């Protein structure tokens, strides 16, 4: 990887109870598919983010398993029905074992 993966998330900071909110996430990552060859003809080993997990107050609410067909700098959006105040934790798991995390607080109005 040329640069470190930087996650970006867009979550409303506050919402009404019962409201349906959309969460949009983006992370910079090459998502090397393992299908490419370098100039010398050697296969460039696969290195992708294989799992995205979103939890709210410790409970997993949404997960996505990504395979090699997911584009570089993967984008993911999903919905959440607001019940209580708390915090989202987003975790991206890399093939190389590292994890990238982001958190976001949600307050009820």
């Amino acid at each position, binding site marked *: 990887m040329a640069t470190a993966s930087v996650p970006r998330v867009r979550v409303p900071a506050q919402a009404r109870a019962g409201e349906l909110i959309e969460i949009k996430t983006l992370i910079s990552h090459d998502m090397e598919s393992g299908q490419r060859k370098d100039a010398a003809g050697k296969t460039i080993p696969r290195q992708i983010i294989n799992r995205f997990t979103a939890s709210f107050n410790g409970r997993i*609410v949404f997960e996505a398993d990504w395979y090699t*067909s997911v*584009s570089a700098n993967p984008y993911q959006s999903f919905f959440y029905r607001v019940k209580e105040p708390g915090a989202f934790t987003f975790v991206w798991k890399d093939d190389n074992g590292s994890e990238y995390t982001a958190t976001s607080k949600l307050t009820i109005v």
Partner: protein
Amino acid sequence: MASGNRFCSRRRVLQLAFAANSGLLLAPRFAQADAKSLADEIRKLYADGKPTDGRIKLDVPQIAENGLVVPIAIDVESPMSADDYVKAVHVFADGNPLPQVVSFRFSPECGKASASTRMRLAQTQNILCIAEMSNGTLYSAKAEVKVTIGGCGG
């Protein structure tokens, strides 16, 4: 894109392999997933479950100008209550070297079984989407995406 075109180089390698007539063993690994391997992938996930059409809104462009970044959005009709919700949605692209694209796993807390991401498509092909409900029922949806620049301007 600075990182270059992944499928482009794959295809070039494949052509070279064929030209040298040494690709017979390598070819199946690089060739597009055929109908059988796709069926195998699906069988791995669901044993012998037979999905029926419907309940899924699969939103993909009819024509994708750039095969490296094709938006995909799915929306499954469901009350998303604790005892009736969408457990997972799996997306396959039958013309890619590896057909699995993404699996979304939902929980009742999502409120709506809807998600979107972006995928790579090597060529014009069908996108197959299978939704798995909490009671085990399967639904499927299919859409064709025409890719104008999938790899090397093809």
